[in-house]
């Protein structure tokens, strides 16, 4: 049954990308344990608004854990301490009365803070744009049953394709690496026969773009897997590594894909 709790929040406030930020302390009083984390922030924001102060800016949209908009680091954990849960699906029954919560934005040089808890994750879009798709045109695609896909492969592809692009993997990685994000897409597409024709080129392009953005490299801490709200496995990173190694051999042996370019950050 629902009860109410009160918490102390230390929230990162930053007016703009080039402004200095600092922590501000707020009290969240009488919060129903049935409320979500974001609803708790809504309540705090309402109070701030009525006091004539600027409410805390945070990204959010679907509030059902699928759009990937929300995210903040709560007491050092990306999306909070609860496993496989986005911030919007984290409910206050997971906290105790009197808890002190330190709330920060994703910290990555590649994700500059726009305001308060809102960061710029456009780098992830550029990585997808560099090759995270199957290059088919709209039109007369072959019948959906023309190419059977084993259930095991289809299921594994789906598991990887669940990535919501929230960036928690980057936030949680001690190296600020985006490997789990990139690996999820590489895995999804290389597991399906439709994605095979351009698999070597795809992995090379996406890794190049990832590096150009300035993300760190993976050193197999696996914190990303623990922080991922969709439970995407690091086995996908191994698959990316494998694809990358094979692609590198092909590039050396056959001189394939010398034309890979990197997208500028303005896209």
């Amino acid at each position, binding site marked *: 049954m629902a009860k109410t709790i009160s918490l102390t929040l230390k929230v990162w406030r930053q007016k703009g990308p080039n402004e200095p930020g600092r922590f501000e302390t707020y009290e969240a009083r009488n919060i129903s344990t049935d409320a*979500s984390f974001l609803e708790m922030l809504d309540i705090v924001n309402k109070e701030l608004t009525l006091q004539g*102060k600027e409410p805390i800016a945070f990204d959010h*949209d679907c509030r059902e854990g699928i759009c990937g908009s929300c995210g903040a680091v709560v007491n050092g954990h990306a999306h909070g301490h609860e496993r496989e849960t986005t911030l919007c699906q984290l409910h206050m029954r997971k906290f105790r009365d009197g808890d002190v919560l330190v709330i920060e934005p994703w910290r990555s040089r590649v994700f500059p803070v726009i305001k308060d808890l809102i960061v710029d994750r456009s780098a992830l*879009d550029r990585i997808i744009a560099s090759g995270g798709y199957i290059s*088919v045109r*709209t039109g007369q695609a072959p019948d959906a049953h023309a190419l059977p896909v084993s*259930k095991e492969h289809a299921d594994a592809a789906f598991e990887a394709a669940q990535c919501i692009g929230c960036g928690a993997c980057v936030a949680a990685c001690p190296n600020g690496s985006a490997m789990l994000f990139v690996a999820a897409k590489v895995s*999804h597409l290389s597991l399906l026969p*439709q994605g095979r024709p351009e698999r070597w080129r795809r992995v090379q392009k996406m890794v190049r773009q990832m590096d150009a953005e300035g993300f760190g490299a993976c050193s197999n801490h696996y914190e990303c897997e623990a922080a991922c709200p969709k439970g995407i496995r690091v086995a996908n990173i191994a698959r990316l590594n494998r694809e990358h190694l094979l692609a590198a051999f092909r590039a050396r042996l056959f001189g394939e894909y010398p034309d890979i370019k990197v997208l500028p950050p303005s896209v």
Partner: protein
Amino acid sequence: MMLDSKVPAGPLAEKWSRYKAEVRLVSPANKRKYTILVVGTGLAGASAAATLAELGYNVQVFCIQDSPRRAHSIAAQGGINAAKNYQNDGDSVYRLFYDTIKGGDFRAREANVYRLAELSCNIIDQCVAQGVPFAREYGGLLDNRSFGGAQVSRTFYARGQTGQQLLLGAYGALMKEVNSGQVKMFPRREMLDLIVVNGKARGIVCRNLITGALESYAGHAVVLATGGYSNVFYLSTNAKASNVTAIWRAYKRGALMANPCFTQIHPTCIPVHGDYQSKLTLMSESLRNDGRIWVPKKKGDSRPPSEIPEEERDYYLERRYPSYGNLVPRDVASRAAKAVCDAGYGVGPTKMAVYLDLRDAFERLGRQTLDDLYGNLFAIYEKIVGESPYSTPMMIYPAPHYTMGGLWVNYELMSNLPGLFVLGEANFSDHGANRLGASALMQGLADGYFIVPYTMGNYLASQSLEPVTPDREEFRQATLLAEERTKKLLSIKGKKTVDEFHRELGLLLWDYCGMARNRTGLEMLLKKIPELRAAFWENVLVPGEAETLNQSLEKAGRVADFLEFAELMARDALHREESCGCHFREEYQTPDGEAQRNDAEYAYVAAWEYQGDDVAPQLHKEPLVFEEVHPAARSYK
């Protein structure tokens, strides 16, 4: 105004082929001279933008989120319909067409619906080619499940995340064109006005949500794919940013708004639990495949569900609708839930909920199978409610979910304003008075991938469009208007937050323009809404500044538009003196409580034309002509 639906002549099954054969084309060399503005990156917007760019048009794409991948199509759970008949259970294009038009209670345009059913198969092919990981059987072929309003299994799905997978497919196609340079992407932009030059849609003004700057973009045509307006109810299953602003501004620039009162209340959502609540969460209709809906037979029975014996449970849908059982269409299921709760049989702490019980399915299929089908839904339910659906029945109640109404478009998906195309949920076209489950994804992708690429060419090829640049007077005027409005909102400095007004509006609509409506309530709404609107403009408190990221200001603008739009919605509901689909007027029902349609007087699309801020809008009627089907009383018994 004469509304010309531009439906091609000829037999129903040949209309689209005939249209395509006769359509005017733009040569490749000329395509690159055209710029098309696409607003919204859900299934309809992303697929349209990608396809138009592939054809060679210059496309500029705008979305309100930080990435096009986050549009609310992503949250669609259950699946997408297609008349593939892979199950050999008697499906066909005609049957999908008939189910859809019947599901919509014969208030949709026949030719549009038929085309939708025809294209459904191409969509599945296209998505599979893009790498959408649909569920498959062990033999490697695609699996299907059934959905409400149909007696065949024609729904393709990817666990409970079909919308996500389809959207990521369309997003991939869009990003491919971003990479090729054919699409220029403008995220975190909110459209604030439509620019009409010499009667044709030629541009938009939007607010850059990061800098607060008002930006003008000019093009040869504008595509609106900005979704529905369920958030007018405040609590809905829509994403928080979903709003009516883009289509409302288009309406105020002369585009007609059709059937705004057709709003779908989805039967299976997690019930409301508190006044701090910010949104409602859907539990996919697909659960009705395996779940059974019931309430206790005894009024006010407060025993836990496990202690209520089988014979004391009322499986009311199975009882009232034996042939469709738990799979009746959404409007029917929602009304039935409301009826049992209003009669005092509701369960849970608020008594405004019914059970959706998977006990029998767990016994029959086992946990693994159900996890494969609905695993993520169980997880969502458990996170929100704190109870495990594995051990206790889920509690559900209807919630606003989808809006069938929207901007009026003809067969070419073009509004009465030439050059303004409206796709997906933002238009009114295919679902009549009630949408069947798994049809929204189908419509969004059909519009974007397969319809607008043809009709856009036809429009551009038959026009001579003067050059228009953002420094024209029309842009300057619109920018000034938007600026003034922003200034006004920030200067009121009242005592109530935007959300408080929004919540109040939502409650009014939910009570009087929700699952059941009547003349008294609607007439009262037509008085109350303008009062609330006036109070808003006197007493709203919007903190912060205009020239920066300001989420309160964004919300205020949207709610201000909802406050205007809600009045039109109530007006439309009041004028339609019949019950059809989701629109249930209590005065018009059969003795056993079913909706009573009035085909003689109301078999038309109600398209409203803006006449000025405090002037009643003008009603235009597009008669619905049924050449193939004969509107019959909709029975699911």
